[in-house]
């Protein structure tokens, strides 16, 4: 492998990692702060992708407006979902959470099948992001991929700012480390949870919307994303945003170079990484420290 190829592969790894982070950050928020195992998180990713598909004819090239509209819809949806279902789960054990969220996967898949059908659909990228640029005489790199990475970075920074620098972020961090104490201090924990959940759903949906022009939309698209995201969350440390970022990039690199150098073993790579990290640090890279 020459240097140019190596650098392109690094770019691939970073780009994949950033997209993973966007989905995983929502999962780690919900899992870490609310203590709910949310198997339906992959469905929210799918929801975002299908929203991008459904909204595309309405917004045309107003791509950013489309993203904002989709995120707003997803957040409202998340808020309602928390009120209707998830708010009953906090006091219950993990088995009941798994049962409910698994049932939600089935419901969402069936709804998708009824509303959109089972065909694969392409989602157009906006024309101002069409085309690509030559990369070291090797291949073309689509502008849209660059945009996707940039968008993920922006969201990561915004998330960091909200969690570290705002009052809401302070409550979220406090809620993650000791929810009873936070409640004791007079914070409306139910409302906080509702906001966090809506935010988590919005993040997953945003990831789906950004990924849609790259991946197309198709049945069961959330399933494989969900599994990798759980790996990211566990490696990063449950509830830690910084951990999720580091873990997604690690997973991106292991997956990319695993595919190139150990094709036969590439499916095992990220799980091996997870096992090693867990032996080294049983609570993940970051201990709920953000």
């Amino acid at each position, binding site marked *: 492998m020459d240097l140019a190829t190596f650098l392109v592969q690094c770019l691939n790894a970073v780009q994949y990692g950033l997209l993973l982070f966007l989905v995983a950050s929502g999962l780690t928020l919900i899992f870490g702060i609310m203590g709910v195992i949310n198997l339906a998180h992959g469905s929210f990713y799918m929801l975002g992708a299908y929203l991008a598909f459904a909204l595309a004819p309405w917004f045309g090239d107003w791509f950013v407006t489309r993203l904002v509209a989709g995120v707003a819809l997803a957040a409202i949806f998340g808020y309602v979902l928390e009120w209707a279902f998830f708010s009953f789960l906090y006091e219950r054990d993990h088995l009941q959470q798994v049962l409910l969220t698994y049932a939600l996967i089935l419901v969402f898949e069936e709804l998708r099948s009824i509303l959109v059908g089972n*065909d694969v659909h392409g989602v157009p990228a906006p024309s101002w992001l069409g085309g690509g640029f030559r990369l070291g005489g090797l291949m073309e790199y689509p502008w849209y991929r660059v945009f996707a990475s940039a968008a993920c970075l922006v969201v990561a920074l915004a998330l960091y700012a909200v969690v570290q620098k705002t009052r809401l972020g302070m409550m979220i961090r406090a809620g993650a480390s000791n929810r009873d104490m936070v409640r004791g201090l007079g914070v409306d924990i139910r409302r906080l949870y509702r906001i966090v959940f809506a935010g988590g759903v919005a993040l997953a949906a945003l990831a789906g919307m950004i990924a849609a022009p790259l991946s197309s939309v198709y049945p069961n698209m959330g399933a494989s994303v969900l599994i990798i995201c759980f790996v990211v969350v566990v490696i990063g440390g449950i509830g830690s945003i910084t951990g999720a970022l580091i873990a997604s990039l690690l997973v991106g690199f292991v997956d990319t170079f695993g595919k190139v150098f150990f094709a036969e073993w590439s499916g095992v790579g990220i799980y091996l990484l997870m096992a090693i990290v867990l032996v080294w640090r049983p609570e993940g890279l970051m201990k709920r420290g953000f």
Partner: protein
Amino acid sequence: MPHVLLRAAALSTALIASTAFAQSSGPIKIGLMLPYSGTYAALGSAIENGFKLYVQEQGGKLGGREVQYFKVDDESEPSKATDNVNKLIKRDNVDVLVGTVHSGVALAMAKAAKDNNTLLVIPNAGADAITGPMCAPNIVRSSFSNWQPGYAMGVVAGQKGVKRAMTITWGYAAGAESTKGFTEGLEKNGGKVIKDLTLPFPQVEFQALLTEIAAQKPDAVYAFFAGGGAVKFVKDYAAAGLNKTIPLYGPGFLTDGTLEAQGASAQNMLTTLHYADNLDTPKNNAFRKAYAIAYKSQPDVYAVQGYDAAQILANGLKAVGGDLGKREQLAAAMRKTPVDSPRGKFTLSAAGNPVQDMYLREVKGNNNEFRSVAVKALADPARGCKM
């Protein structure tokens, strides 16, 4: 007490008599085990539509007997396959099994059909093993083996002067069988596969492997993917600009039922399959018209395979006058009688797989248009079949 015993005995004799009777008259029970939900739901209903269209054209009868359908949704789930197939065999007592799309499920069905000596017609699943090591007189297939389209594409690539090719697929049986066929076809025509790339099913993150292809600069790439994976791969390949310098070949599944989503990135791609959208033969035109009238939609290759599954079964039943007891004659007739398929006439090999023309097709708009016959009357080698 003796009364009860006597009655029971009389009843059971009557039952035995009636089941024996059912062998040659009364409705023939057909068990459709197809995916009616999940990723392959559209394929399942296309197959069922095709099958029923043929039966309707025969006046609703096969071999002079009425047809009664039993349906089970296999969900494309191999872990439930044995239970599902037993529902049809043991509970519903079907005479014939028809199914399915997913190869893993079809292998379980083949095993059950073998154990219970039930007739099985497979309308899609391409696993080589079904008409290879698993072959049996009571098992036939109306579709293809994974090896077939791959081999045909290898021949075409070789004839186009491809010397160094790469293959890429998911690391599962169907992908390996398809690329193996391609490698064989290419090697017989002066080319070589320099590297096989795989990624775990059903991952769709291709960028790393595309970079690998760009670095190796082969003369051509052969890809086996289906559904969402096929759409994403073809689009990513074009987005990386590779389609300008390295032609992308594949079996028909790479561009069948996915063209709307692939859009411009699939235009002018060459693939091989046993069917093309615009085959201009009287049989195909009549079939497409009848299907469009009956179901208000255009048929695809899966509908053709369903149609032919019914036809193969009808050929066998006709030869024995609807008497399922005459197994040997039935099995022989299903293989010997030419099938007048919309794809063109074909017969079945001894192993029960179609010996059929493979077409080279080119993507134009939303159609896979016929270009030429890539290989005439191609038979699967049926490796490992002992019958």
